[in-house]
């Protein structure tokens, strides 16, 4: 009998596709009755085409997705296909993140995070050293970090002091640190509050003063994602606020050019929060072979495989057991990498309640979109901050209104 074919739709930011292929080859060796095909696609496909397929009741058997919550109704509940023992394993190790990927109130096991991402900053240690500026330590505030980076900028003549990726997701941790709350009591979006505005105001001012690199935020419209990583890699900015996924990238592209460190998230009055996130491997409800899918998923979620995957891809694992146990041997000879990853693991413990809620909150994207769109306009001088606040509220209300129709 022909082996059952299972298709995984997969995108790659780096080498994880190759690693996964490698692992799957091994799986097929162990399970000759299942043929797993890895369909490597662009992220765009996952974002734009997969939803269409899913809505028509089609799609692959398994997919690696980031838009976890909104499409939760399309994920297959693996629970019926797993043994009790397996269910226990899943709940124990991945249980705290299931809410990110299932509909509110459901107890489904749709999949697991291949990768936990943690928003946080990077500093160019060499630039700081050359400028003779002391790097602020743990617990330093945003103001202190920006101040220090500004000194480096002056001294080293860099283009700007720092950059935050152009993304509503990135600034939501800092917003939380400034006391922001997005979520109203009934779970719907709350109006933009003063906490949010406080950080946003700072950000706009920093940009106007030339401290934050305008190329990232100002030079784009709408919800376009822009990263400041390239400028950091080229030592154009001493400080970058991005996230853990950059570690592998920084390692390959910076190489030996300078030393860099992960700094976690600077603090605000309410805390020093970043934001967690991640990509998950989920089973698709429309599969014709749920049993086999469950077997593949369970195999991939096994501790040994998750560990190997993380070690080779330099991703943060989202496996509670592994995190607890520690001792991951990240496969990199770059001395900057292990401490950076460690710092991110540490940062994941410093998140504020809002930050913990956001990944599983239905309206997070509406909020992110409004934030990034309007803040950029304010930075460009097209609208005032007050107008931005109004418009953000309106944008979010529009999305909610439309979604509820």
């Amino acid at each position, binding site marked *: 009998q022909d082996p059952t074919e299972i298709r995984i739709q997969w995108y790659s930011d780096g080498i994880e596709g190759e690693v996964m292929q490698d692992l799957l080859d091994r799986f097929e060796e162990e399970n000759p009755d299942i043929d797993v095909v890895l369909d490597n696609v662009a992220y765009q496909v996952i*974002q*734009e085409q997969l*939803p*269409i397929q899913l*809505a*028509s009741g089609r799609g692959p058997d398994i997919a690696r997705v980031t*838009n976890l919550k*909104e499409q939760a109704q399309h994920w297959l509940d693996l629970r019926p296909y797993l043994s009790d023992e397996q269910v226990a394993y899943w709940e124990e190790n991945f249980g705290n993140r299931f809410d990110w990927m299932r509909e509110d109130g459901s107890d489904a096991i749709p999949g697991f995070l291949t990768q936990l991402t943690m928003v946080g900053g990077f500093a160019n240690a060499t630039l700081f050293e050359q400028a003779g500026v002391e790097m602020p330590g743990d617990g330093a505030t945003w103001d202190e970090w920006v101040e220090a980076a500004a000194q480096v900028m002056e001294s080293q003549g860099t*283009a700007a002091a720092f950059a935050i990726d152009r993304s*509503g997701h990135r600034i939501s941790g800092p917003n939380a640190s400034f006391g922001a709350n997005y979520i109203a009591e009934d779970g719907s979006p709350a109006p933009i509050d003063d906490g949010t505005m406080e950080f946003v105001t700072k950000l706009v001012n920093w940009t106007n003063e030339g401290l934050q690199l*305008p*190329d990232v935020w*100002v*030079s*784009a*419209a*709408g*919800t*376009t994602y*822009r990263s400041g990583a390239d*400028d950091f890699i*080229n030592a*154009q900015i001493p400080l970058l606020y991005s996230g853990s996924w950059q570690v592998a990238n920084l390692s390959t592209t910076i190489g030996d050019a300078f030393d860099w460190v992960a700094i976690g998230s600077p603090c605000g009055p309410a805390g020093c929060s970043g934001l967690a996130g991640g990509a998950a491997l989920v089973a698709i409800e429309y599969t014709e072979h749920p049993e086999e899918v469950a077997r593949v998923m369970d195999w991939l979620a096994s501790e040994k495989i998750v560990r190997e995957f993380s070690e080779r891809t330099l991703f943060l694992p989202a496996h509670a057991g592994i995190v607890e146990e520690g001792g991951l041997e990240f496969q990199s000879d770059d001395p900057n990498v292990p401490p950076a990853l460690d710092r991110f693991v540490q940062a994941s413990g410093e998140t504020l309640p809002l930050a913990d809620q956001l990944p599983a909150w239905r309206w997070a*994207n*509406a909020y*992110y*979109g409004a934030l990034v*769109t309007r803040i*950029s*306009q304010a*930075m*460009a*001088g*097209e*609208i005032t901050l007050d*107008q931005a606040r109004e*418009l953000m509220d309106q944008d979010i209300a*529009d*999305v909610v209104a*439309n*979604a509820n*129709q």
Partner: protein
Amino acid sequence: MVTAPLTLLARIVDPPLRLWQRWTGLNGMAAFFLLPNMAIFGVFVLIPLALNFVYSTTAGTNILLRDRSYVGAEQYARLLDCANYLEPLTCREDQFWTAASNTLVFVIFQVSLMIAVSLITALILNREIRGRSFFRAVFFFPVLLSPVVVGLIWKWILQRQGLLNLMMVNLGLEPEVWLNDRFYSFVATIGVSTWAHMGFYTLILLAGLQAIPKDLYEAAEMDATPPTRVFRRITLPLLGPNLAVVLVLALIRGVQIFDEVFVLTGGGPGTSTLYLTQYIYEVGFASLLRNPGLAAAASIVMGAVLVVLTLAQLSLSRRSERAGER
């Protein structure tokens, strides 16, 4: 050659077609010639278009039509709700109006530039110069690049530490952060899109130039006509039908500009290079907003405006077209 089987095929289909022709006359033949194209066209263009219109009357975030709720003209009302149409911020969908006015200005400049540049290039490439095929390939080359790569190349050239600034520094000039400047960014989107597509239009015009009978140029030469007048009075009018293609296509593609601009400026700085298609894309597809109904409505408004523009343009070129119908 590859044409051999085709020739055979053409011979085989001839006898039945003769019968058909005898039976239905010229109108039947016209139907026959139109049919394959219109059938495919109907299924894969017209039906989706009609569906798109249906989308524009629905709301919600669901993708499939059957899951969506009908709201009538609500999306249009939302789009067109404006206190002062000249002031985008007074509109409910301020980004739509910003994008629309940006697009209008963009199209006016880009289409003029595009036509001028590709016409000049076509005229030059039509001359008997040495290395003509090489130069043709040169000017056509960018058309082969995907818009994303085009955007990327020019971003590398124009960005803060890009090639252009590098050259300016080497020449002793002050570098400039081009893409942070509203004016330069706008100019860059015009320049880059022209760069990327002019080869396309140049080819069309080149083919059109070939269709102009040579003896007319000889007659004009006997009349001692200055080159500029030859161009205005003979080349331009006789190029009419092909120029109409270029104009219409340039117009349409100008309005639909997206990928390369998206990569190059992302619509910035601020919203200064935010064009309609990016708006539609964001509203309809970017995961953060997802309002396919509104996007469909916007696309239909855009299409309607384009149809009107094109019709105006085509009726203007009717006269030259009739001259072409020799």
